[in-house]
């Protein structure tokens, strides 16, 4: 961004949107590969033990929010949200901090009462039911493990409150300990546990109550990256195994993509977009979602012409791109386009395709598995591209190289139009 030589202004601001820096490593790209549109891996991580996203969940409704609004003094934290959560679903509330996702979770837990609107769990209005009478349990961000109780006592707490008989209580605690792989650690005190173990205690303590809905408030945010990724997989596995409805709050888009059946992108107290991970990633419905999930080059332009199959959009930077005509509504004149950086194919020779721009590499940023390239294709347009890391290879890309950027028509998403 700072390398952008063009004067600051509305146009360069648009280009600058492309320059956010989030990690999206699961794409392979090869500079030498002849351009083959088919040669692409899904941007979703293909995890061995992981059921494909959007695997069938029940169509029955578990939770329903009807026009739920929550105001604190002058601040509207949650603004007229309608949302239906299915039984056995892993739903993620994703958004930046302060977007209202945590308030939404607290409304579900019963810690907040909606200013207006209704919350139904299995058809029953629970809007005014206090948390201790809801069949909902939460895993807290801080874990909130009771320090004065042992691991066992922590896990048994909810059962004790519900007057579960001692024998059954013991059995269920043992079972829960085994479920989260903490068997044998029941007598420990919380301060004797590692962060990951405490996280498991929090999970067991909530699951042992067999809630209708399990609420998870950024439960993995305190773990280091490696452990965190293992836990993501484990948690997803567990959810599938138990069939319990999970509502998971995170600000980490990657985490959301990995784990969720559906993601609700929350922005300013509203649901910006609700869909499966692939839908959200591949077909963002707003500039916000396109920018927030993964990384994107966001480009504004005029719709110049259409032949029914493809349409031509002249970007404000002067460059023309071809998009699918089907993506446009009749009568639209302006469009906001999103191009994922890994969908930009970099070659040294000109490919015979649409949407091919010649440019110079202005910057090459080493990002581990990937290289991020900043390529200037017009005097005020810089594109961000991701390629597999080839730095050590003779074909590595270098700053100053002249290259061609090719983008498949299908990979240009019309995010907004008017």
């Amino acid at each position, binding site marked *: 961004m700072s390398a952008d030589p063009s004067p600051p202004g509305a146009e360069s601001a648009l280009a600058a949107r492309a320059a956010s820096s989030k990690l999206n490593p699961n794409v392979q790209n090869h500079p030498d590969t002849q351009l083959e549109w088919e040669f692409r891996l899904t941007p979703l991580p293909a995890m061995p033990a992981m059921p494909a996203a959007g695997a069938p969940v029940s169509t029955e409704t578990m939770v329903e929010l009807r026009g739920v609004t929550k105001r604190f003094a002058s601040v509207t934290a949650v603004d007229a949200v309608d949302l239906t959560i299915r039984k056995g679903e892993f739903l993620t509330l994703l958004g930046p901090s302060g977007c209202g996702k945590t308030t939404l979770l607290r409304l579900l837990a*019963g*810690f907040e009462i909606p200013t207006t609107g209704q919350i139904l769990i299995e058809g029953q209005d629970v809007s005014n039911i206090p948390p201790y009478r809801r069949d909902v349990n939460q895993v807290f961000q801080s874990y909130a493990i009771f320090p*004065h109780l042992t691991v066992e006592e922590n896990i048994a707490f909810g059962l004790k409150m519900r007057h579960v008989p001692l024998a059954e209580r013991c059995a269920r605690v043992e079972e829960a300990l085994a479920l989260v792989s903490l068997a044998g650690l029941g007598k420990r005190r919380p301060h004797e546990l590692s962060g990951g173990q405490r996280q498991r205690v929090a999970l067991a303590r909530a699951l042992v109550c067999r809630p209708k809905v399990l609420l998870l408030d950024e439960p993995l945010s305190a773990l280091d990256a490696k452990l965190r990724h293992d836990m993501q997989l484990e948690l997803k596995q567990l959810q599938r195994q138990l069939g319990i409805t999970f509502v998971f709050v995170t600000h980490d888009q990657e985490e959301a993509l990995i784990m969720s059946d559906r993601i609700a992108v929350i922005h300013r107290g509203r649901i910006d977009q609700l869909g499966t991970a692939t839908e959200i990633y591949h077909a963002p419905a707003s500039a916000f979602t396109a920018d927030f999930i993964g990384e994107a080059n966001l480009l504004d332009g005029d719709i110049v012409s259409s032949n029914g199959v493809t349409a031509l959009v002249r970007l404000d930077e002067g460059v023309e791109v071809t998009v699918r005509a089907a993506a446009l509504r009749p009568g639209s004149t302006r469009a906001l386009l999103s191009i994922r950086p890994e969908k930009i194919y970099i070659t040294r020779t000109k490919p015979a395709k649409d949407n091919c721009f010649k440019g110079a590499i202005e910057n090459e940023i080493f990002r581990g598995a990937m290289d991020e390239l900043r390529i200037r294709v017009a005097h005020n347009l810089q594109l961000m591209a991701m390629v597999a890391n080839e730095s050590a290879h003779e074909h590595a890309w270098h700053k100053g190289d002249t290259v061609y950027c090719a983008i498949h028509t299908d990979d240009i998403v019309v995010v907004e139009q008017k």
Partner: protein
Amino acid sequence: MAAPRASTDTSSGAKRAPRTIGWLLLAPLLLWLLAFVVAPTAILFVYSFCQRDELGQVVFSFTGGNYARILDPVYLGIFGRSLWYAALTTALCLVIGYPVGYYIGRSPPARRSLLLLLMMIPFWISFLLRTYAWISLLKGEGLVSSLLQGLHLLAGPLDILYTPTAVVLGLVYTYLPFMILPIFTSAEKLDHSMIEAALDLGAGPVRAFTQVIIPLTKPGIFAGVLLVFVPSIGMFAVTDLMGGAKVPMIGNVIQNQFGQARDWPFGAALGITFLALFAVAFWFLHDRGAEGRR
């Protein structure tokens, strides 16, 4: 043996430096403790085995008689009563002070500072002045009495002053802040998600309070109980002024030995006994408290 080894080993010398600094930093505190805690206690201990002469001067001819005198039912009874009054005061302070301390601790910072300030303001006025203010409030022809009679809540004049009720009232008034402050500190540190977790796991407000909030604010309760219980056993000004000096407490008896009776050795023996009892109680309570937290 250690000294020559240390002088040849430079690395151990380097390790030693911070320790020296630590002791230097501690020195003022240690000197203070030595001069104002250890030394007086040692003097008291020696006195407690001495005798008094005709003028009440301490004579260094040693005897265990002072301790034998404590075992007299007269003084044992007073020990017992002092413990009972102190326990009652502590219980009342806890019942009144806990909600206040908790409320202040859970208040937003701006209000918290204001409430703490309001609580501190009475401390700017001398303790005796405040006690005399209570006397003039509670007297038969005083404000409270007139008010209650004016509201027809009371037939005759208020009869609280110079009764045990007034003593407990005075003690509670005097020591309440010492209960509120540590509970406030504990409540302030209490992670709100602990309470939410309890509610979330099915504990209603009452059980969340007894099962989670109380155990987690136990350090504050423990400190508050000690801070109220110990000084209220020894208190003599309130018993004299508001209680009309009618019901002697152990503090009054000790004060009397250093005053009117001029029997310092006996006073010292009472003081040492009191100290020993307190040490035992503290050790017992603290041990249990620590066990609870472990």
